[in-house]
Each structure stands twice: as structure tokens, then as C-alpha cells.
């Protein structure tokens, strides 16, 4: 199916997206309907004015990307210490809450910056994200990390006062810490590879 008669004929961005989806994703139908498919939604985002300006901006995009990468230090860089304490590897003489509570505001700020800049980057490159296997791997890892936090929070964390001062926390807490470490390593790896192969 050709591009003749399509809106994309006169719009370089739409035309590029057309070629991209046709070659990379193998999508050969008409442009996706936002209400009917995921690809349609990604198409819609990619064609918005805000997405285009962000994608083509000379300064804003690199700055947003820079903030996204360097905020690793205060998001994952801080969650590591809590995870390692949960596993029972470091700061064993300190209660778990004494490690977690003071770093929580900084960590949450870090993750807030990560999500905000991450969404902006996705918004600018929605179609390329759709075509990147690493993007989907990253999303799966993020989802699993969220589920892990949820399970921890609603189960073993409820009885934290009972094991707060244990040098080595109960197995379920240790597993939550280990799973979190592994998943964040996966998120970083998939994210970096995604940017490299975009």
C-alpha cells in the first residue's frame, strides 16, 4: 500500500513515521486509529505538535535526556542502599527504617524526575519506541519492579516493626530486595541499549 493521497505526502515528519512503521514494524495498513490499536495511539502521540517540536529541538531534547540519565544517581543510586540493606549485605547494625526513612524523600524526588523526563522522551520518540524491542523490555521490567514494590509494601512491610532491627531480614523481604536490584539493573541496561539502537 503506497503513500499516495495520504496526509503524509506533504508532511516530512508523518512521511518519516510512515516509512519507519512500514519498514521496522512491518505495518502496511492505513494509519492506525487511536481508538483501535496501541500503534494508533503511538502514531497519534508521535504526530502531535508537542512531540515534533521536542524531537526536533536543538537544546531541550538533549537537556531532558541528560537529566534523565544523571538522575539515575538519586533514584536507582539511592534505592540500591535500601535494597542491599533488605538483602542483609550492608549497614546491618542499622535498623532497616533508619536506612530507608531519611533517603526516601531524595529517592522519591529522583524517581519523580525520572518518570517526568522519561515520559517526555517517550512522547518525543513514540514511534521509534514502539519499534524498539528494548523499549518493551524496559516497560516489562518497570512493570515487574512496580509489582515487586506493591507486594513488598502490602505484605512483609506491614510487619516491619517486628524485623526492623534484624541484621538479616526475613526471606520474603530479602527476596524483595534482590528482585528489586535485578530489575533496576535490567531497566538501566534495556534503557541504555534502547537509546543506542534507536
Amino acid at each position, binding site marked *: 500500500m503506497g503513500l499516495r493521497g495520504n496526509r503524509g505526502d506533504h508532511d516530512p515528519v508523518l512521511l518519516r513515521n510512515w516509512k519507519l512503521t512500514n519498514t521496522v514494524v512491518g505495518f502496511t495498513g492505513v494509519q492506525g486509529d487511536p481508538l483501535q490499536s496501541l500503534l494508533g495511539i503511538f502514531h497519534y502521540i508521535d504526530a502531535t505538535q508537542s512531540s515534533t517540536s521536542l524531537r526536533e529541538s536543538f537544546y531541550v531534547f*538533549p537537556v531532558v535526556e541528560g537529566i534523565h540519565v544523571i538522575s539515575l*544517581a538519586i533514584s536507582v543510586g539511592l534505592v*540500591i542502599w535500601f535494597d542491599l540493606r533488605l538483602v542483609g549485605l550492608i549497614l546491618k547494625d*542499622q535498623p532497616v527504617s533508619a536506612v530507608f526513612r*531519611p533517603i526516601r524523600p531524595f529517592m522519591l524526588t529522583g524517581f519523580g524526575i525520572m518518570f517526568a523526563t522519561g515520559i517526555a522522551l517517550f512522547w518525543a520518540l513514540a514511534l521509534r519506541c514502539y519499534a524498539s524491542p528494548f523499549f518493551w523490555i524496559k516497560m516489562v521490567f518497570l512493570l515487574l519492579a512496580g509489582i515487586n514494590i506493591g507486594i513488598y509494601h502490602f505484605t512483609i512491610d506491614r510487619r516491619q516493626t517486628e524485623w526492623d532491627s534484624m541484621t538479616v531480614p526475613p526471606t520474603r523481604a530479602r527476596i524483595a530486595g534482590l528482585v528489586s536490584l535485578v530489575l533496576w539493573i535490567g531497566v538501566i541496561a534495556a534503557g541504555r541499549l534502547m537509546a543506542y539502537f534507536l
Partner: protein
Amino acid sequence: MWDKLYPYFLWIENTPPAHGIRQSKWIFSVAEVFHLFGLTLLLGIVVILSLRLCGLALQRKDVAAITRELRPLSIGGLTLVLSTGIILFISEATKCWGNVGFRYKMLFLFLALLFQFTGLQKITRAAEGRFSPITRKITAFVAIFLWFGVAIAGRAIAFF
């Protein structure tokens, strides 16, 4: 001075390992991944130590004791960033030579390492109470400034 270094950068780029890295589809990207692991670990340590020096976290444990406990991880993080950084550098040495981000990164890296093994080491190994809170706070800010400077200039390499 910098101009005179060009032949060396060119020589590095033409060594067999540099050729090997360029020919492989994966070495460079995997080195980037591990460079980022190292950054997370190293900057994470700088942040947590700075929070402690400012009296914002882990107050019940001595700075010296925390530093001692985190040492294997900080040495690990430093080894990781330096070794993967060398892999990334040798494969595109002449590009780095002409890159303003790279020059700033090397400047910040030199200052950060210098500070790490002089001022910071002195403060973090000292007994509690030997240095005033204000001295410890300034130390924390300098460490944050220098190490984040390395990271920001490093990120800038990609855009010049």
C-alpha cells in the same frame, strides 16, 4: 598543548583493540551499559555520603564506619566506570580529542579524583567531631559538584 596530543589520540584509535571494538556491533553498547551501572553505583555513593556529611541520613553511624563499609562498592564502581570508559574512549579517541564535552569531562574527572583521595578521604576517615559541621557540608557539596560535573560533561559528549 592539547593540539600536540592529537598524534597520540590518533595512534590510540588505530591500535588493534580499538579496531576490534569498532568492528563489533555489541562491545561499545555493552560497555555503555556497564559504564551506566558504574555511574549509578559511584554517584549513588557520593550522594549517600554527602547526605550523611550534611547530617541528613544514617546519623547514628559514624561517617568513617560508613565509608569503610561502602569502600568495596565505591572501588567497584570506580573500577567499572574507568575500565568501561577506557573501552569507549579508545574506539573513538580522535572524536573525543575534538569534543569540548570530553575536555571538560577530563578536567572534572581529574579534579574529582584528586579531591576524592585528598580532601574527601581526610574528612571521611576522621573521627566524629574532628571537623566542624560546616567543613563537612562544604566537602559534601564539592564532592557532589565535581562528580556530577563529570557526569554532565560526559553526557554532553554525545551532543557535540
